[in-house]
C-alpha cells in the first residue's frame, strides 16, 4: 500500500530562517502527494499537491515542495518562516485501494522561535 514517512517529529526554527520538512513515500508508480497544515485546534488546510508534470510545485503561504523520484521524497520548503507558520504539518499520499483516501504521515510539529 502507498505510505509516507515523516522522519522528523518536531522541528524548531528561528523566525526568518529557512525551513525544510522531510517526507518520503513508498509507492511503485507516480504517487499523488499532498502537504497539509493543521493549526492548533483547527482542521486541515491544503498547502500544495503534486500529481504530475513540473517536479517543483508552489503552494499557498509561500511554501513549495519538490518531488524527487530518485529519492522517493517530497520535501516541503519555505525560504523565510513566520511565527504564524507554527503548526502541525502532514504529508499524505493518495491510496488507490482505499477509495482515493489519503494515507498520512505521522506529522511534523513546527515550533518557531523569536
Amino acid at each position, binding site marked *: 500500500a502507498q505510505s509516507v514517512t515523516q522522519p522528523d517529529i518536531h522541528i524548531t526554527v528561528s523566525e526568518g530562517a529557512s525551513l525544510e520538512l522531510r517526507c518520503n513515500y513508498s509507492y511503485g508508480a507516480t504517487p*499523488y502527494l*499532498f502537504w*497539509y497544515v*493543521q493549526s492548533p485546534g*483547527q*482542521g*486541515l*488546510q*491544503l498547502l500544495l*499537491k503534486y*500529481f*504530475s508534470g513540473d517536479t517543483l510545485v508552489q503552494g499557498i503561504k509561500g511554501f513549495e515542495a519538490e518531488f524527487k523520484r530518485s529519492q522517493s521524497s517530497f520535501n516541503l520548503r519555505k525560504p523565510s518562516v513566520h511565527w504564524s507558520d507554527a503548526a*502541525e504539518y*502532514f504529508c499524505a499520499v*493518495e*491510496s488507490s485501494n*482505499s*477509495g*482515493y*483516501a*489519503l*494515507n*498520512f504521515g*505521522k*506529522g511534523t*510539529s513546527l515550533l518557531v522561535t523569536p
Partner: protein
Amino acid sequence: DTAVSQTPKYLVTQMGNDKSIKCEQNLGHDTMYWYKQDSKKFLKIMFSYNNKELIINETVPNRFSPKSPDKAHLNLHINSLELGDSAVYFCASSRRPGAGKSSYEQYFGPGTRLTVT
C-alpha cells in the same frame, strides 16, 4: 460560506452510549470521507464513500457506520462508545477522479472532538 461543516464541534458522552456526528459539504463533490485523528495527532482513514461504493478500512470496528442521506451529507454513527473512541473525527470531500484522470484534492471539515468518559 463553509465548504465542509461538521456538527457538533465537541461531543462528550459516556461509555456505552450511541452517538452521531453530522457532516455536510456544499462543494458539489461526490465522494466523502471520515478520518480519525488520535491523541498523537495520527490521521487514519475510516471510510471512503460515494453514491456507488463504500470502502471501509478493515481496522474500523463495526460499531462505526457511515450513513449518507444524500450526496451532500455523510454522517457517522457510533454504537456502544468505548474509551478508545475518544479522538478528533474529520470529515472530508472531493471530486472523484475518472478513469485515467488526475486525482482531486480533499477539503476537510473543522473536526469533531469526541470525548468518551
